[in-house]
Structure formats: structure tokens, C-alpha cells
């Protein structure tokens, strides 16, 4: 295609948008709403997943053993637990290791543990069990609860389940809302393009008679749709970046307890979201304009 042809098609596409400004704006707003929801659900969803990953790394399952087990029995148990499905690692923690870890954790206040040594250490033998994914925690727990020699088990089951449930509900509902908004955007774009086609009836008619190809006649309208989609995507995405950063720092500032949870950085989130959102917006534009052309542009 000649550069002059490309310039011509772009100019025609833009002029179509200008002549039809109100509908253009309505379409941009519809796409922007869709992309906003997409961005919002991606931000929340990716942070939820991020938290779940952190929990996988940090929580795991702590298994505390009865005090009367021999070294050999402990060794056997370690092997058995290691054989459970979804268990990736079992680490043995002796009472002394546990005591050292406690002292370290308390730092300057470690003197409260003074007088405790191997002979009177009240802590028990334990295993730190790591899993492949957090979703499998409950099945592993079931097996552990059936084993002998275990005094108690500590795990983040309720928190995990809650987060998993939130994540699932959130994912399903945001996909639904996005689909509905996507369909609405496509329909509004279709209508905008339909009006644009009607505005240019005479032009299309002449183009047809002088032998313009079908695609030459259609392209300005596709360009219109793509421009609508891109503008509708870029605006909420660019606005979304500082808003995301502000919200995260506000959460850290006002809810100090939350500090142990790490949110994803703006750069991490938008590295994926920005290109994906732009492509998605452009795709809405193409779908809207092409369907409209198929319906309303007889060439």
C-alpha cells in the first residue's frame, strides 16, 4: 500500500470520528468502562494470587510431634510425610533449633528464654512441611490428621480457604462483568460505525462506481473502530497507573497491620496490563466495526 493511500485512509477514518463526535465519545466511554473493569479485576486478582503465593512460601504446615518418639520413629515419620501427594519438602526441626529460632525472633528480649537448655527445653520435635500449591493443603492435612505420633498441626487453612474462595468468586464475577461490558461496547461501536456509514453513503457509492476495492471502502471504518478502541483503552490505563500506586501506598499507610502482606508493584502489574488492555481495546474496536460493516455496508 502506498504511503499516500495510508495517509488518505487514516484521514478518512479520523474525519468520520469528528463528524460523528457524540457517538464517538459514547463509544470511547463504553470501551473505557470495559477496560477499567478489566484493569480493576486484574489488579485485585493478581494481588490475591500474589498473596496466596506468599502464603505458600511462608506458611506451609507445621507438624508438632509427641514428646516420647525415638529418633528412629521421627525419621520414619519424616519419610512417610514426604511420600504424601503434593508434599515437596519436609524439614525436621529439633527442639534446640526451635529454641534458637525463637531467641533470634525475639532479638533483644531473648533473655526471657534464659535458663532453658537441652535438658529442660519445653518445645517439641516438629516438621515444617512445604506443599506444591496452596490449593492442596486440605488433602495433605487429611492424611496428616490420620497419622500416629502427632501432637498438633498448625496451618493457615482458614485464611487460605478464605483467600482462595475470594479469588474464585472474584475471578468469575469480573469475567462476567467484563463480558457484559465488552458486548455493550461492541454494540455501541457498531452503532457509531453504522451512522458513519450512513453519513458517507454518497462517497461509498462513488467509490464503488470508480472501482475502489471492497477493503479500500471498508478500511476507514475499521480504522475508526480501532481508534475508538485504542483511545477507550489508553485513557483508563494511563489514569489507572497513578491511581493504583496511590491506593497501595494508602493501604500501607492507614492499615499498618497489613505490612506483612506484600502488594504487587505498579510496574509489575502494568507491564502486562498495559499492552494487554490496549490490544483488548483495539480488538473491541475491530470486532464492532467489522460486524457493523458486514451488516450495514453493501459494497
Amino acid at each position, binding site marked *: 500500500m*502506498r504511503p499516500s493511500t495510508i495517509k488518505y485512509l487514516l484521514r478518512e477514518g479520523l474525519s468520520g470520528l469528528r463528524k460523528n463526535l457524540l457517538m464517538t465519545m459514547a463509544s470511547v466511554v463504553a470501551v473505557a468502562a470495559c477496560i477499567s473493569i478489566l484493569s480493576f479485576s486484574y489488579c485485585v486478582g493478581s494481588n490475591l494470587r500474589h498473596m496466596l503465593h506468599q502464603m505458600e512460601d511462608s506458611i506451609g504446615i507445621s507438624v508438632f510431634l509427641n514428646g516420647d518418639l525415638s529418633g528412629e520413629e521421627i525419621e520414619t515419620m519424616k519419610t512417610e510425610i514426604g511420600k504424601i501427594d503434593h508434599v515437596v519438602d519436609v524439614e525436621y526441626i529439633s527442639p534446640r533449633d526451635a529454641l534458637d529460632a525463637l531467641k533470634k525472633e525475639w532479638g533483644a528480649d531473648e533473655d526471657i528464654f534464659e535458663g532453658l537448655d537441652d535438658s529442660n527445653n519445653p518445645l517439641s520435635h516438629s516438621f515444617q512441611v512445604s506443599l506444591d500449591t496452596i490449593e492442596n493443603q486440605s488433602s495433605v492435612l487429611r492424611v496428616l490428621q490420620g497419622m500416629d505420633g502427632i501432637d498438633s498441626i498448625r496451618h493457615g487453612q482458614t485464611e487460605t480457604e478464605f483467600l482462595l474462595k475470594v479469588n474464585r468468586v472474584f475471578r468469575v464475577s469480573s469475567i462476567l462483568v467484563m463480558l457484559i461490558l465488552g458486548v455493550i461496547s461492541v454494540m455501541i461501536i457498531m452503532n457509531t460505525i453504522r451512522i458513519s456509514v450512513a453519513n458517507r453513503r454518497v462517497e461509498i457509492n*462513488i467509490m464503488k462506481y470508480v*472501482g*475502489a*476495492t*471492497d477493503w*479500500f471502502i471498508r478500511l476507514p471504518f475499521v480504522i475508526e473502530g480501532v481508534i475508538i478502541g485504542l483511545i477507550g483503552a489508553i485513557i483508563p490505563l494511563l489514569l489507572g497507573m497513578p491511581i493504583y500506586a496511590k491506593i497501595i501506598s494508602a493501604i500501607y499507610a492507614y492499615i499498618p497491620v497489613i505490612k506483612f502482606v506484600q502488594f504487587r508493584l505498579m510496574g509489575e502489574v502494568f507491564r502486562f496490563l498495559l499492552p494487554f488492555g490496549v490490544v483488548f481495546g483495539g480488538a473491541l474496536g475491530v470486532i464492532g466495526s467489522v460486524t457493523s460493516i458486514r451488516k450495514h455496508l453493501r459494497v
Partner: protein
Amino acid sequence: MIHLNNVTKTYPNGSVGVEGINLHIQKGEFVFIVGSSGSGKSTLIKLLLKELDPTSGDVMINMVKTNELNRSQVPYLRRNLGVVFQDFRLLPNKTVYENVAFAMRVIEAPSRTIRRNVPAVLSLVGLGQKSRSYPNELSGGEQQRTALARAIVNNPPILICDEPTGNLDPETARGIMQLLDDINKRGTTIVMATHAREIVDEMQKRVVTLQDGHIVRDVEKGGYSDEA
């Protein structure tokens, strides 16, 4: 150049546009298609432009059977055909120059060719001085000259005119006919559907008369009807 072999067009509602038409037009001819309203003139023009396909028979233009072309080939067929309508069909927001250049631009002609050919064709139709005017600043005759310039700027071998003088006063119409005659003398085949008895009588060209979808008369150099 143009061959219609036993062409019939029946519309979906059952009415007959044309029936059993055999018409052969050679390169460089000037042919009037005359007949009253409903005689089949419009159907014939639409068949030539491939706006309609025949129900039976063949339409051949430039050795190509148009009824066998697929959609993507139609634009290339139409580049062989210039078209002029009664209602001019100019783009009101474009100047005379831009209206003519538009026809070249949409078939992706190089900018340099556009800059060379548009002024040449505008001076040929006598609008060299009006290239910056908008259609609403032109008289009917000037608008039709613009439409003519647009129709011939891509040098089509065939020019199809559907009542080109229908909206013009007799004097202006005569000027347009003079122009069409000049274009014809440069080698362009012209097919013109018209009601204008005086013009046909004056020009003394080939006249094909349609009635109820049939060709009832075809004379080499004649008037609108036999009485003339």
C-alpha cells in the same frame, strides 16, 4: 467491446426488467438507449455496471463475462467503466479538484499521476478556472462537467451515462453533449440512456429503443423515433 447475449433479467417480485436482449457495441461507438419509463433502460444500465446480474444470458465487457466474476474482481471491471448520473453525485464538502482527484485516489493512483491528470481533465471539460470551487458554487452544467471529469479521469475505455442531461436546460445540455462527442472522438465508447428527444435527433448516432424490456428498434444513425 460490449456484448449482451440473450440477456433476461427477472426481478424477485416476478416483474421483467429486460428479456432476450441481444446487443453488441463496438469500440468507439456512441449509442443512445431510449425508451419510456419502465422500458428497461435502467435495468440495462445496471446490468452493464454489474449492479445486477442477468437471470439468464451473458453480459460481456472487454472480453470478460461479468456474470462469472466474483466479488473481488468487480472493482477491476468497474475501472473500465466511467459513470455519469442525472443527479451528478458530487461530494459537497470537496472542491471540484478534490472531487475529481477522489476517483483516482480510491483506486490508489500515485499522487504524482493525480497532480498531473486532474488539471488536464478539468481543462478538457472547461473547468480549469473552477478547480477550487465547491459544488454548491457551480451551475448545473458545471456540476455535470465535474462529474464527467471524474468519470473519465481514470481513462476508462467505456463511458456509461444515465440521463446525464436530465437536470439541465437545453442550452447547457447541448454543451454537455458536445463534450461527450469530443470524448467519444478521442476513442471512448459511450452508452447513454436518455429521454431527451431533441438531443438524440440532433446527434444522429446509433439509437437502440427499448419497450417493455425488449429491443424494438436499433438504427445506425437515427433520431429518437422513426417519425423524426
